[in-house]
C-alpha cells in the first residue's frame, strides 16, 4: 500500500551561527541592552544577570526594553535598532 507522508517537507529554517566574539578595548564603555519578555519578574531576573556581567565587563549603561507581549517576537526594525546601539544584548525565553 502506498501512503503519503503528513509532515512538513519544505526547507527547514537556516541555522544561524554565533556572531564572532571580539575583545573589548581598554577604556571602552559598553552599552548593555536587556530585552525582557513581559513575564512577571523577567526584568528583575535579567537585571540580576546584568549586575553579574557588570562585575566582569566595562558596562557603562544598561537599557531595558520590555516586550508588550511575550507571545509575539519583536519586529525586525527594532532588532536592527538594538543591534546598532548596543554592544551586548541579553534576552531569554521562559515563564
Amino acid at each position, binding site marked *: 500500500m*502506498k*501512503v*503519503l*507522508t*503528513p509532515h512538513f517537507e519544505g526547507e527547514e529554517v537556516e541555522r544561524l551561527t554565533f556572531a564572532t566574539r571580539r575583545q573589548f578595548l581598554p577604556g571602552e564603555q559598553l552599552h548593555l541592552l536587556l530585552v525582557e*519578555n*513581559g*513575564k512577571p519578574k*523577567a526584568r528583575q531576573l535579567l537585571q540580576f544577570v546584568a549586575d553579574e556581567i557588570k562585575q566582569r565587563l566595562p558596562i557603562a549603561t544598561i537599557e531595558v526594553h520590555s516586550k508588550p507581549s511575550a*507571545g509575539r517576537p519583536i519586529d525586525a526594525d527594532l532588532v536592527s535598532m538594538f543591534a546598532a546601539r548596543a554592544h551586548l544584548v541579553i534576552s531569554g525565553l521562559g515563564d
Partner: protein
Amino acid sequence: MARSVELDESSAQEHMFENNWTDGLPVIAPTPERVETMLAAAGLAATVEIGEIKERSRVLTAEKAAINAVLAGCKPEYFPVVVAALRAMLTPAFNAHTALTSTGGAASCLVVSGPYAESIGMRSRLNVLGPGNRANMTIGRAVRLVAANVFGARTGEMDGSSIGHPGKLSMCLAEYDPPAPWNPLRVELGFSHGDTTVTIMATEGPRQVANHLNPDPRGVLLTFAAAMRNPATYCVGKASQGLVILGHEHAQILHDGGWTKSQIREFLVEHSRIAPAELEQWGVVPEKGSQHDFGATPDGKLPSIASVDDLFVVTAGGAGAGWSAYIPVWAPTLHNRSVTVAVEHLGAHAAVDATSLAKLRESLAAGLRSDGADLLVKQVGLQALEFTLVIPTASCAECVMPAATLSAIFATQVEKALGRGWTFVIRDPREG
C-alpha cells in the same frame, strides 16, 4: 507531490504510530487516491497554499492539509470546513506560533456556524461537546494533526503544554441557529445567514455551567458570570475573549425573558470583572509591572473579558435540566484573538494555474494582514476571479480600505500575475 512510502497493510498502523503521524489514536492511511478525493471535494490543487506560520518558516499546502484530514478520518465533504479552520488558524491575529506552543496548553476550539454544518451531519444539539459525531470529532482532529505534523506542535517538539486537556485532540461544535430575533454567530460577525463560517479560538477546557432551578434570566446570567470570574482561571482579570454556549433551557429563559444577545454580552462582561483583592483572597497574586498589568478600572475591578465584542455567545446543546458551558480562552487579547473565516467551495480552482493564483492571493493579502484582514479566492471563472475580504474582528473593520479602493489598487497586480483580460470582484462583508 508529498513523499510517499510503501507499507504492508498489516503493519501500516504501527508504522504511522512509530513515525509520529498520529495523536495517540489510530488513523486512516492516507493513500494517494484518498488524498486526491479529499482535495477534489474542496476543488483545491495540491500545491495551493492554505497559509503559513512565518516564525517557523513553514507553509501549509492543500495536499498536506488533505493528507492530515484523511489521517483524522474526515469524509471528503468535511474538507472545505477543515480548510476554512486552517485558514483561520494561520491568520496572524490568531498567533498560532504561540497558541500552539504555550505551557497553557490551548485547544484549537472550532465553532461552525451555518447551513453547511448541518448538511454534512455536524452535531449542534445533544452532547455537542462530547463524542459520537464523526464530523465534529474528525474536523477538529484534522486541524490538530496539521498543527502537530506540519507545524511541529507535538510533545517533545514545539508543544510545551504543562497539563493540556482532552480538547486538544478535537474540540469542534456546530451552532444551532437561535430563535429570532437573535442572530447566529456568523451574522453577528458580519457574514450572511446563507454563509457557513468557522471561528477558531485557542481555549482551555470547557466549564459546564449548571443552573437547574432558577427561571429568572438575571439569575442564570449571574451563574455564568461566576464561572467566568473564577480566580483559578488564568485569564480572569486579564482582558481576554471567551465563548458562552447557551444550552437549550438557558437560551429559552433568556430569549423568552426579552434579553437580546447584546444585552447578555454586556451583562456578562460587566459581571465577570473582578477586584484584585478578590483574586488575592483566593491566593492569586495579581500581576504588577508586567505585560498583564492593565491597571484597575475606576471602581477598582479588572476586566476578565476585554470588551463586549470579545465575548461570543452561541446556542447549542440538547434539552435537559439547565446545562450550558463557558469556554475561556488561553491568553489575553494582547497575545491572541479568535478568527472567523467563511467556508469556501473553490470548485474552479483546478482549472487555472494554482501556483500563480496562490502567489497572487498571497501578494494581495500581504498588505491587508497588518490590519488583521485577509483575502480569499472564492470563485475562479473564465478569466474572472471573485475574492472575499476577511475581516476577523469588528474592531479592525474601519482600518481596512473599502473594496472599491482595494480593487483599484489590486488591478495592476492581477494583470501582472495572470495577464490581460482578467476581471475580478472583491466581496466585502461590510457591504452586506
